[in-house]
């Protein structure tokens, strides 16, 4: 046994058991958070703030030292895909669009020669609607398919399960469709997320409703699944911190068609506006029934409501509806227009947000593989290079924070004459107060 060398005592460590001190100076607001929305902001500085400094996604594991894949021995470079595809799954429209976006990115990369002459291959898994039923998908991707990275899913529960599995099995995940902000708040360094999450949506809606529209008494109507339950939380917290605690919160079961009971409760609460956190079809029915009851309050919605379906179902009752939109499909820049044309030519349908973000995500992933080679740890490192940087994609300009979450401003949409019109988020009071980024 050998004992080699020693350094002396430094005596610089603070007391380990006694004193408390506030967090070190933080160089940016987490997730573009408006000061008014800071938890305990008017009370005290937290003892520790997470997710706002370099190396938030620390990783000292061994993945980088794994042997690289032997390109010569591989027929294809496999990439996993997990999304809701079966028609019985109400999220399948999002999953199918997501698949098309990913497929297009793969096909375009293959047209350019793939990876060192080997084509990329998408290994597709259906995300089943039953809780936990898709939990083994990532295990199969890693051990059976032998994928180098994966893209998915839409449902945040499935994505959280993937995240937990990948902490052990170490497969890079590109998440292009979940809204749940907690997906990037776990400290697990194997996931990148580019879809506007519920934090960004909640902050933007609160600003618009309370500071621009000057409403005061808001009601909440949410679908009773994880999308609705978790989705509304940031909006509700922000509203409360702005002094406008929602006066009523009610929910409906996924697939509901009759909302009269919920709407009567909301009407009785004397709201001057309603926020719906759910899907487009139900939002359309809610609007129709609400207006038929004589309720004329303005209605606001989460990004999933921004789909043509809502106006188709609600008809004139949809007029004036304001939602968050994950993209602005009326953009005229060449990047978007050329993508649109290629997508329509390939799939005979217009691309939506799920297709656009999946295309960007798959393109980012392929770029990381081209840069890092067939090594999962280095692929993740290549993606991590986007921390605090922008990426210009077909979906828009993403800005990735230290958690690799896209915190770029969102887009608003309003139904006018039966069609959505779009404009970029324009925050008011916190715009001037926000702290500059460190980089």
């Amino acid at each position, binding site marked *: *046994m*050998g*004992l*080699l*060398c*020693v*350094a*002396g*005592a*430094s*005596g*610089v*460590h*603070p*007391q*380990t*058991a006694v004193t*408390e001190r506030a*967090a*070190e100076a933080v160089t940016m607001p*987490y*997730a573009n958070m408006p000061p008014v929305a800071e*938890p*305990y902001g008017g009370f*005290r500085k*937290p*003892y*520790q*703030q*997470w*997710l*706002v400094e370099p190396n938030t996604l*620390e*990783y*000292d*594991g*061994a*993945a980088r*030292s794994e042997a690289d894949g032997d390109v010569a021995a591989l027929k294809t470079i496999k990439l996993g895909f997990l999304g809701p595809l079966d028609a019985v799954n109400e999220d399948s429209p999002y999953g199918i669009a997501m698949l098309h976006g990913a497929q297009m990115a793969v096909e375009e990369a293959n047209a350019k020669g793939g990876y060192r002459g080997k084509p990329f291959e998408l290994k597709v898994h259906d995300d089943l609607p039953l*809780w*936990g039923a898709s*939990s*083994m998908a990532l*295990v199969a991707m890693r*051990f059976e398919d032998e994928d180098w990275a994966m893209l998915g899913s839409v449902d945040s529960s499935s994505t*959280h*399960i993937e995240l*937990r*599995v990948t902490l*052990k*099995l170490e497969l890079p995940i590109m998440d292009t469709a979940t809204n749940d902000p*907690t997906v990037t*708040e*776990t*400290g*697990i360094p194997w996931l990148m997320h580019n879809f506007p999450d519920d934090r960004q949506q909640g902050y933007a809606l609160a600003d618009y409703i309370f500071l621009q529209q000057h409403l005061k008494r808001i009601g909440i109507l949410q679908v009773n699944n994880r999308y609705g339950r978790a989705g509304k939380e940031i909006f509700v917290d922000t509203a409360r911190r702005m002094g406008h605690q929602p006066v009523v919160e009610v929910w409906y079961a996924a697939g509901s068609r009759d909302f009269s009971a919920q709407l009567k409760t909301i009407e009785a609460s004397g709201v001057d506006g309603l926020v719906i956190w759910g899907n487009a079809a139900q939002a359309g029915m809610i609007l129709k029934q609400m207006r038929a009851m004589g309720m004329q309050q303005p209605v606001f919605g989460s990004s999933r409501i921004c789909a043509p379906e809502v106006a188709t179902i609600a008809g004139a009752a949809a007029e004036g509806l304001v939602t968050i939109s994950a993209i602005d499909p009326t953009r005229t820049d060449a990047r978007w227009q050329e993508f649109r044309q290629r997508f329509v030519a390939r799939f005979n349908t217009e691309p939506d947000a799920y297709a656009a973000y999946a295309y960007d995500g798959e393109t980012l992933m392929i770029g990381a593989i081209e840069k890092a080679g067939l090594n999962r740890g280095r692929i993740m490192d290549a993606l991590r290079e986007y921390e605090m940087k922008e990426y210009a994609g077909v979906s828009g300009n993403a800005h990735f924070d230290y958690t690799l979450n896209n915190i770029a401003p969102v887009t608003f949409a309003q139904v006018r004459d039966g069609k959505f019109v779009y404009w970029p988020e324009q925050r008011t009071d916190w715009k001037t107060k926000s702290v500059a980024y460190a980089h």
Partner: protein
Amino acid sequence: MTMQAWMMRRVLVVAGWLFAAMVGVSVQSAAQTPGLYTRWINYTPANGFPTGEVFCVTVDGARVWAGTSHGLVMLEGGRVKKVFTQEDGLAGRAVMSVAVDKESGDVWVGTFGGLSRYSGGKFTNYTNMTSGLANDLVYGVAVQGQSVWVATGAGVNRLDTRTGSWSIFNETNAPFAEPWGYGISVAKEKIYFAVWGGGVLSYDLATQAWKPFTDPDGEMELVLYRNQGLIHNIVSSVSYNEETKTFWASTYFGLSGYDGRNWHNYLTKDSGLASNFINAVHSRGDEVWASTQGGLSELDTRTNTWVSYRRDAKTGRGEILVTHADGSKERIATETSVAHTYILNTDFQGDDIWVATAQGLSHGMRAVRKEQGK
């Protein structure tokens, strides 16, 4: 103890005194420094291990079980005796947890593919499709009397091994904020569960009452007060210490301990903890062992001294950082080291420690502990 083992122990003791003399540690600080693990034997593909990725380790008397990404490894007498794979009947390739029924000798194995019972030389498997198992992602397993408790990706199970009946606990019948079970610790009167995203849950065996312990500030991105309560809801494991009547919870945002009255929370900025991202915790006696992504950390709760072990990636030698209660630090280098700095799990065999790492299983032996009168 064999003559060879006795000789080895004496060599370690002498080396330990030489070490103390070399480093010039004061009498007081030496007395407060836990005995250090300065000798390591590593098991990697170079000496018969199926892979480097070791997720868990469980000591079973003279036998040691290690769960890896390529099956279940059984070690006896310091050698790899057998590697069990799916071809041998194991439910899944990646093994996350192992528990031994001390009464029957059965070995329960949690895998990414279901739960396996190794008994009488063969495996019996339990999956979501063939049994009451809540989900095939099995993170934790523990034996308590005739019950086997299982932490899965969709709730917690109890299997009554005498009747074969399954119970499931999740957000529908217990205070699970999330149903994602991760770790289990068995105490005399309670079972403690680490719930990923849902904090710690205790289950009282007599009253069948559940009690949640969650992050009181309710926010993912901050810790409001140092000893506010559970430091974060993303809990990766829990370890109840019968001697100190304290449960310790590892999270990806620091370490928490609760003694029934006070919380004791630790971050890298206020302690010698190697990393705030902690994969597992194990407490016994005055010791708390944190398996972190940046090294193996020990807290001696009696002296409030921390010892953290890392591997120098360039030289392969060991680095020990001792952080005393007064904040002073000592750095010590050792010729041997844990197999990798990314630590996933620990268990003890007498005074020896076994460590699951990202690149091998490590067996550590203390050098100086007995001479320091601990």
